[in-house]
Structure formats: structure tokens, C-alpha cells
């Protein structure tokens, strides 16, 4: 491999990292949507006459930077009001306690360790992963079913124990659980419809999940931000972060394993994988949890790409792997190591981008009106969904937004919204067909 080619590879990784970092700052915008846009452009322009590997590396740079930089909007631009403090993620609590930057550093540290885990351990355990995949493949239907069962059974009542009588207690306790089940059911139904009968224009069919996902997770959060009464307090920027090595190790190992599980098993996402691993590792404390959040996200997104290029597997997980597979087929070990190096490079650069961007935002964010920012982002998302999926997509997004608001308003887990992916894939793998019953075929 000649030096100029390597330099070009590095350049494209850096380009992808820069683009991904900039776009990931926008709350609610998912890198997969942007990548879909890039792919559309790439195909329309006939591949731009460039080496497909360079395009691959650019997209990987975008993905890695997203997995890091997404932390910024998720912490600084989504501070709900006090009434939801009880069910807040630790990252949001940290922001309220003027420690937003500390949360970012902890998450970014977890993410960096996650990248190291992928680049070092995935090649080492190449053969083991291949064997496990072969064994698990025939059993995937019950494995995904078990994940769903665990999600549904592991949410416990969040009441304060003050009840007039047992019936009143049951009603109070079950309010959040039933809201969670309703979310799961509706999101699952939306998923079955989306997977069975794509309503959006055929030319954009590969973006069929865009509108539901943006509705379930992004616009519902933005609406919550808009209706919440909140202010972002002045943030402290400490010179060092007070975290014990034990917290870092515990969090990063738990997060990395949760992320790898999610990258490995179809339909399972970083949130679900991270949640399961936090249980599996009996995680305690916010710091360990924040580190694991970073590791889990990175390993999920980036690990999926590493598994796609892994010579013993070539697993197609996640929209990027599927998108890349449209114009590129991984074949050689060299390609895997090139991708591995690209991931490491993008990861290190993204880490520093996150830290500096967080320092900058921690100083400036109290001066910005978060509502204005949220309105702008909502506008961007609506335009994007309209361009990519037409007015039908906007309609789907509205329905998904309504579903996404249910857990937010009833304090149940938002991960129930992931039924939009989990249910149709699980039904499909279990050989259960609901589409004809719903009149979709």
C-alpha cells in the first residue's frame, strides 16, 4: 500500500470526523440519517469516481465522531424541568448540578476506552466471535425474544409508597408500567407497519425507519424541552475529574460488553445493551454509569462496523454497514486493519473534539436560549424528513412523536420505543407473520 494512498485514507477519516462532529452537535439529528443523505448523493453522482474504500473511511469517521460528539447535545441541549428530575439520566442531573462538563469527560473517557476495546480486542477474539455467532445464529429468535421479555419484566414501579389502600397502591405503582407497555405495543405496531409496507416513496425506501425513529426519540424530546420550564445553570469547568479507577474500569467494561452484545444481536441497540450490562455488572453510582454510557454507544455503533469488516464474520449490523454494503464488499484482512486504524484515529480525534467543544459550550450555553435552539432543530428535522420521506414521512413522524411522548409524560422507560425495531425483527425471526392480519399484504 503506497504512502500517498495511506495519506488519502487518513485525510478521508479526518474529513468524515470533521463533518460528523459538526453535524452531531445538532440535537435530534442521527448520523444514520445524514449518512443516508450522503449515500444518496454518492449514488446519484455515480460514485464520484473515487476509491470506494475512501468513502467507507469517511463514513466511518462520521460514525465514530457521532458516537463521541452526540454526548454534547444530549447533555447540554436537553435539560428537562424539575418535575422529571426523579427519572433523569445521571448526565442530565449533572447538568442541573453545574457539572455538565464533568459528565461529558466521563462519557468521552468511556467512549475512548470503548474504541480501544474494539480496535484491540475484536481482532484478538476474531475466531471466538465467529464461533459464537455460528452457534447463536440458529437461536436468534429466542435470544431476541428473551431481550424483549427482560425489557418488559424488569421495569419496576416508581411510586413513593403512600397509598390509601392496596387497590390505590396498585393503580399508582402500575401507572408507569402500563404506560411502558402501551409504548411498547404502539411502537411495535408502528414497526410492523413500517417493516411490512413502506409508505414512503420507493426511491427513499432505505430511509423508511428515519421518520419513526426521529419521531420516537428526537421530536418527542424536543417537544418536552419546549414545554418544560427550565434554565441551564452556569457550568463549572474543573481542572480534573474526581473519578476512581474502579469506576472507570467497571463502567467501561460493562459498557463495552453491553455495546458488543447490541452490535452482535440484531435489533438490540446501545441503550438496551447498556441497560442489560449495567444490570449484569451490578453497576452502582453515576460516574460508573456515565463511563459505561460512552463505552456502550461507541462499541455498539463502531463495533458493528468492525464486525462487518471482520474476516471471520462480515456481519451486517446497523444502517452504516448496510449502506456500505450497497457499494462495497469487505474481503481482505488488510481492509479490516485499515478500518480498525481508521476507527482508532477518528476515536482519538473525536475525544479531543468533545472535550474542547464541551469546554466551549459549558461557558457559552447559559447565554443561549435553549428554546430557540430547540425550535431551530425541530425545523431542521421537519425539513430533513420531508426531503427524505415526503409528507407521508412527516405524518409517520407525527404518529411516532405522539408515541414517544407517552413514556416521557408517564416517567416510564423510553427504551420501550425501541419496540419499533425489536418487535418486527423478532416476529420475522420467529416466523410469526402479523402483516396479513393487519391487512398490510
Amino acid at each position, binding site marked *: 500500500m503506497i504512502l500517498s494512498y495511506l495519506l488519502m485514507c487518513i485525510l478521508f477519516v479526518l474529513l468524515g470526523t470533521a463533518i460528523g462532529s459538526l453535524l452531531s452537535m445538532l440535537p435530534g439529528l442521527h448520523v444514520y440519517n445524514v449518512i443516508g443523505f450522503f449515500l444518496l448523493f454518492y449514488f446519484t453522482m455515480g460514485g464520484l469516481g473515487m476509491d470506494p474504500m475512501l468513502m467507507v473511511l469517511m463514513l466511518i469517521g462520521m460514525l465514530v465522531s457521532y458516537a463521541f460528539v452526540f454526548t454534547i447535545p444530549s447533555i447540554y441541549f436537553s435539560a428537562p424541568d424539575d418535575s422529571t428530575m426523579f427519572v433523569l439520566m445521571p448526565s442530565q442531573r449533572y447538568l442541573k448540578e453545574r457539572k455538565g462538563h464533568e459528565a461529558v469527560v466521563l462519557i468521552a473517557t468511556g467512549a475512548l476506552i470503548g474504541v480501544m476495546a474494539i480496535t484491540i480486542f475484536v481482532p484478538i477474539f476474531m475466531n471466538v466471535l465467529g*464461533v459464537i455467532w455460528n452457534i*447463536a445464529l440458529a437461536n436468534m429468535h*429466542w435470544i431476541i425474544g428473551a431481550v424483549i*421479555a427482560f425489557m418488559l*419484566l424488569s421495569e*419496576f414501579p416508581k411510586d413513593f409508597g403512600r397509598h390509601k389502600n392496596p387497590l390505590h397502591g396498585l393503580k399508582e405503582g402500575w401507572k408507569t*408500567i402500563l404506560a411502558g407497555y402501551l409504548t411498547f405495543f404502539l411502537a411495535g405496531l408502528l414497526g410492523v407497519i413500517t417493516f411490512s409496507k413502506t409508505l414512503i416513496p420507493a426511491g427513499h425506501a432505505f430511509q423508511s425507519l428515519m421518520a419513526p425513529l426521529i419521531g420516537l426519540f428526537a421530536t418527542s424530546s424536543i417537544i418536552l424541552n419546549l414545554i418544560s420550564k427550565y434554565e441551564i445553570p452556569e457550568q463549572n469547568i474543573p481542572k480534573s475529574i474526581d473519578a476512581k479507577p474502579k469506576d472507570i474500569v467497571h463502567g467501561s467494561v460493562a459498557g463495552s460488553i453491553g455495546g458488543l452484545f447490541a452490535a452482535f444481536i440484531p435489533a438490540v441497540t446501545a441503550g438496551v445493551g447498556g441497560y442489560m450490562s449495567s*444490570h449484569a455488572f*451490578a453497576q*452502582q453510582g453515576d460516574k460508573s454509569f456515565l463511563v459505561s454510557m460512552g463505552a456502550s454507544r461507541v462499541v455498539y455503533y463502531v463495533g458493528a462496523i468492525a464486525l462487518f469488516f471482520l474476516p471471520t464474520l462480515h456481519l451486517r449490523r446497523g444502517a452504516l454497514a448496510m449502506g456500505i454494503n450497497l457499494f462495497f464488499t469487505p474481503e481482505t484482512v488488510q481492509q479490516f486493519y485499515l478500518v480498525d486504524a481508521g476507527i482508532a484515529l477518528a476515536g482519538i480525534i473525536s475525544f479531543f473534539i468533545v472535550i474542547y467543544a464541551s469546554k466551549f459550550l459549558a461557558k457559552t450555553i447559559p447565554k443561549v436560549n435553549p428554546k430557540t435552539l430547540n425550535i431551530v432543530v425541530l425545523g431542521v428535522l421537519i425539513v430533513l424528513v420531508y426531503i427524505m420521506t415526503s409528507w407521508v414521512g412527516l405524518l409517520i413522524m407525527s404518529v411516532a412523536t405522539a408515541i414517544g411522548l407517552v413514556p416521557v409524560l408517564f416517567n416510564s422507560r423510553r427504551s420501550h420505543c425501541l419496540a419499533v425495531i425489536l418487535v418486527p425483527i423478532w416476529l420475522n425471526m420467529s416466523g410469526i407473520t402479523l402483516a396479513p392480519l393487519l391487512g398490510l399484504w
Partner: protein
Amino acid sequence: MKGFAHFLAGLTTATFVVVIANAYYGHNLIADAIVQNKALILILGGIFGILPDTIDFRFAKYLQRHDYEVDMDEWDLDPKKVVNTLARAINQASEENREVNVMLHTVKISSDQWRQYNVQFDTENNKVICDIGPIISGFEKRPYITTYLPKEKAHAEASFKPKLNYGYDAVTHVDILSGPDFSFFPEKDGSVRADFIPWHRRWGHSITMGILLAPIGFMLYGFTPLGWTAFWIIMLGYWSHILTDHFGLMGSNMFPPFTTRRVPGFKVTRSMSPLANIFTNYSNILLIIFNMNAWSKVHYFEMPWATMLGLSAKVNYAEWYIVSLLNYIIYYILPPILVAYFAVVYYEKKKGYRELTDKEAMTKEQLEELGGVNV
């Protein structure tokens, strides 16, 4: 154990049941039903593995009635109210020869701040002690150090008459979410027995309940080989929860209605100990992988001991399975656990950590159980 460990233990148990049922019925009957006909029978193991906590925290908790409720607010903090109520309940249980239940509510100050207070039973001197603690923040329970009350306002003691048996000797911290409750039972010898969160680890955590639920397997699959397999998966999956919980301190009431009290645990570990959970989950995941490989038509890995002994899955399945499993445990399950265990022990010794006393361990376990065993 955390909910995930129970769920996984139930799944692992289910895979063992499938291996045995497969060998019993022959022709790879059960495995084919799972792999080829996509039967979801294994999930029952996970569901019934986590079910005891689901029953307790989603239902039994709300069915518990209370004779007394201590409900203080920040402007009316009175430790005497706590100790007097508890002492009265203990005396009443003895005098009226009936069960008396007391609920201690948490003191919520704002959306993320709570006032902590501690309750302790001094069984030697027949005293209940209450100390009002600081205001704490959120799930991390960080205390605001300027919020401690002066000792004369924070501390109270009250005496009770009968001898108190509190086998689960712990300091009870009342802080976030829902508070704890206590039941006081009169005993035949005139003493009173105290039970912490009496609705937990009772009938929902019993061998009896596992037996009662097992016929659901027949309701799902009829009296077929799959039905019988489901029967055993449900029962053993349910029992796996009771067994794993029993390695902790609190224990469970095993055979209600024939028994009425919890049998103390083996005291091997705390239910929320990270190491115990990690080791259990690691072992379970590896065992599930082993069993999936064992019932697969193509074995993606073979263990060397079975090969050395000339054992084959097709000829002598049981011997092949047992030798391979033993080999697998010794090669892949035990070494990482032992290495991790000794590394942690070495680290803790180096850092000067000491082992928790029984009382401290129980206090910690109590907090963890209360903090939402699975939340």
C-alpha cells in the same frame, strides 16, 4: 442478585432442561422444535427466573396492610415519633398476640433531595434507636454536610417490653423512593419476631410457588414432550431465583403455607455484590453457549477431553456431554473467575479495605433491596 442475573439463571436452567429433555425424548426432538420450528420455550426460563421479584415488587408490596405509618416532613422531623411507633407496635404484637405492621415513609424534600434517617433495633437492651441524618441528593445519596441536625434533635430512643428476635440484624436507612416496612409477629415463647419488608421473599420466593406455576407449561403446550419440558423449565427456572437469592443474607420463606418465616441465606455474598453478579452472569452466558452448541446438529467446538476419551455425541451422548461440560468449566469458566477474584482480593488488601461485618453486610443488602432490587 440483580434482575438480570435471575433472568439469565432462569435461561441457563432452561437450556439444561432442554439438553436433558432432548436426550430423554431422543431424535433431537426438543432442540429441533427450538431451532427449526422456532419454539420460544426457552424464554419461559428467563420469565419465570425473574418472576419472584416481579410478584413481590409489582403486586405483593401493595397487598401489605399497615397498622401504623410514620410520615414525617422536613418541617416536622421528630425521631421520637419513629421510635415510639415502632416500640408501640412491638409491645402491641406481644400484648394482643397478633401481627402488627409499621410503614416508615421517606422524607422527600424536592425532586432530587431526601432527608435520610436510620433505625436500629438494640435487641440486647430492648431499645429502638432512630437518628435523623443529612439531606441527601439523588441515587448517589451524596449528603449535604451542612444539613445535619444537632444531636439532641436528631437522636431518640424508646424501650419495648418483649424480647425481640431480629435475625436480619441491620441498621435500616430510610432515604429515597419508597420507605421500608416492618412486621412484628408474636412467637410462642412470648418473644416478638421482626421482619424487614415482610412482603418480600415470602410466598413469592418459595419452592411452593414454583410447583404451583409449573402446570402453565401444559396450558401452553399440552401434555406433549414440549409441555413437559415447559413444566420443568418453569419450575426449575423459578427455583433458580430462590437458590441464587439464597446465597445472600436475607434468605426466603421456602415452603409457605407450611412455613411462615424466611430461612436465613447461606451468607456467601450480598445480593447486589458486583463480583457475585458478574461471576454468575459470566458463568451463565458461557453455559448457555455450551448448551446451544451441545444441542446443535453441527458442533462448532469440541472439548479436547471428550475427544481424548474417544467419546462422541452421536454414540454416547450423556458421557460426551458430561465430560465436555466438565472440561469446558475447567478451561473457560473457572480460570477467569479465579483470576478476577484473586485480583480483586489483592487490590482490596493493597488498598486496605476490610471485610464487612455481618451487620454491615446486612445493612448494605437491606439498602440495596430497598433501593429497588431491579430498578
